[in-house]
């Protein structure tokens, strides 16, 4: 390959458009792909992620569901077992709590329980993230609940490019994949290749190389970490930012290698702190990089409270750049 060939042409699109493109391309490619969710049809979804799909694919493949999350996720499981590739959309990730039996007791286990007799080729798209004053029932980041469950895969992209490539892989995957989209990122712009591409599930990505400290981050926390890295760079500290991209399969090798290299690691995630993502990742790092670490692995996550409504209350409960910067400073003491 020549140097020009590797620099593939790109254009700037939003996270939302990246999601929409991924679905459209996969629906064109494979008749078995359908989209089901509340108001995903003619109205294009409340976050406008399916705009144009109903017009292109019709109401047989872009299906407005009743407000019955457990039911239509269950129905998607059945469709996935019998030759379809449903994408089920949950407007707010919080509503996933209504579908846990179907996702955890059914989708995650059916292949295993039947000794490998079938595939559950299901993608569940769901939103996450606070910061919109949506209060406790519309702001949760519940990815840890699903990452805990054997049989599920969990993707959690941080930018338009990754979102598109990972979502296409998720749709083609023969297993149930939960795909978390931060609501605050839908308008974010990013470079996305013009040509078709896939990003495999299970590869972390170093979004910024650095030598002094490793910031392991997910979803919107990647952007936050990159900002923090800029602040730190001004102080002469070079942070390496590792975007986890998939909670399962987890690319522990990349994460651990970075921690070994820098000797310091901080894990940053927007879910609630306790018994969540940061505990697992910190624990993996200390287990595998113990002899390389010059300080404990620190964790930054949402406060252990339901997410409050008032912006003055909400802000202090979610991670911010200052906390990351301070943590790095405290580590390197």
């Amino acid at each position: 390959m020549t140097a020009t060939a590797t620099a593939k042409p790109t254009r700037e699109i939003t996270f939302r458009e990246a999601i929409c493109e991924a679905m459209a391309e996969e629906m064109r490619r494979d008749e078995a792909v359908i989209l089901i969710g509340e108001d995903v049809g003619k109205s294009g979804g409340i976050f406008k992620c399916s705009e144009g799909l109903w017009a292109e694919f019709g109401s047989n493949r872009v299906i407005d569901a009743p407000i019955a999350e457990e039911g239509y996720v269950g129905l998607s499981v059945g469709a996935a077992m019998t030759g379809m590739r449903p994408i089920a959309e949950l407007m707010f990730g919080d509503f996933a709590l209504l579908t846990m039996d179907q996702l955890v007791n059914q989708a995650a286990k059916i292949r295993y329980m039947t000794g490998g007799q079938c595939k559950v080729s299901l993608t569940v798209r769901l939103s996450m993230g606070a910061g919109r004053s949506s209060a406790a029932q519309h702001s949760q980041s519940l990815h840890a609940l699903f990452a805990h469950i054997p049989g599920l895969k969990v993707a959690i992209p941080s930018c338009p490019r990754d979102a598109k490539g990972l979502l296409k892989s998720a749709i083609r995957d023969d297993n149930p994949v939960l795909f978390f989209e931060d609501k605050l990122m839908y308008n974010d712009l990013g470079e996305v290749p013009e040509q078709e591409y896939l990003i495999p599930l299970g590869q972390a990505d170093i979004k910024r190389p650095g030598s002094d400290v490793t910031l392991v981050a997910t979803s919107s926390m990647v952007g936050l970490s990159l900002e923090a890295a800029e602040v730190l760079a001004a102080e002469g500290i070079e942070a390496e930012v590792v975007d986890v991209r998939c909670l399962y399969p987890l690319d522990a090798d990349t994460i651990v290698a970075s921690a070994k290299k820098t000797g310091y690691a901080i894990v940053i995630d927007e879910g609630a702190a306790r018994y969540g993502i940061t505990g697992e990742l910190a624990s993996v790092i200390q287990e595998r990089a113990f002899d390389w670490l010059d300080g404990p692995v620190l964790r930054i996550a949402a406060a252990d409270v339901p997410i409050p409504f008032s912006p003055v209350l909400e802000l202090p409960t979610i991670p911010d750049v200052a906390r990351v910067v301070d943590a790095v400073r405290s580590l390197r003491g």
Partner: protein
Amino acid sequence: MAGNPVIALRRWLSVSPHPRIFSRPMAKSSPRPKKSKPARSAPATRSKSAPRGDGARTRRTRLPDADTVWSMYRKMVEIRSFEEHVWDVYTRGLMPGLAHLYIGEEAVAVGACTALRTDDYITSTHRGHGHCLAKGARLEGMMAEIMGKEAGYCRGKGGSMHIADMSVGNLGANGIVGGSFGIATGAALSAKLRKTDQVAVCFFGDGAANQGILMEAANMAVIWNLPVIYLCENNQYGEHTPFEAVTGVKEIVDRAKGFGMDGERVDGADVLAVLEVIRRAVDKARKGGGPTFVEAVTYRFKGHHVGDAAGYRTKEELAWWMDNKDPIQLLARDMLKAGVATDEQLLAVQEQVEVEVIAAVEFAREAPYPAPEQAFEDVYS
């Protein structure tokens, strides 16, 4: 309402200059979505014999006592005015989050809550301001909560979608569609076990009527004979989706048959009809007669929330409902006709309410935000 209250009142009371004869059919429509063409691109011809519940109003012949009528009128005006100010506050960027307005549906909350005692329970929805006010919430606390202030009912932690006022039996709005079926039913069980003869009313939407927990809760209410009323506000849409497109029964009250529960359907624009139906159900429940399912046929005059342009419905459809089914207009006319009120009196109430609501807005604007540390309180008791 944000403008001159007098003009606004005249608008409410005015007879539409061009009475519309078109609207979309409701009870008659097919339960199957017609996928090939966009749902309801134009309202179909309204059949002469209007479907029960939502068609020509079967007006009560006699009004209840004047106090009751006046207080219902006042409460409906209060809700309307409150919501129009929420609109205003929202569009001026003075409140965070989302605002789901109750304009057009006032008669349901007011009719129902008028049939309740203060110690009776309600559970509310994301579209809950009307329920809260009707059950007795104060304007200041409501408005302050909506703006995220410490003086709000929830100290700024809940916001528009989570207002509760336990002191008057309001167990709270709910951001989860269908999230309060269990809670209302549990409050009814609690009342029964504590032998208090309290009753619980569970407000929910046509969209919520497809959540399975409704069947689970309703079934328990039947087998244990609980004092609970499931009051469906069928405002024709769940977000952007017309209810017929996602509902397998022609009338939502038909769900009751599958629960083994009594069901009634009522014109949700007619506060007197709602009052009567709910009173009957409450009496029955209080006497140990068990649960009732009620469908109130209504319409939201605004979009799903402030900012939703509601392109999924036609102007004609909206106009028909506003012209024919404005609950405040309808009650005002009855009051005038029955000689219970004069134009001036109605106007005076409107003006008083407007002043109060404006005062509440001012109060809320001036009120301080909670201290950031309060975010970490109230998690556990």
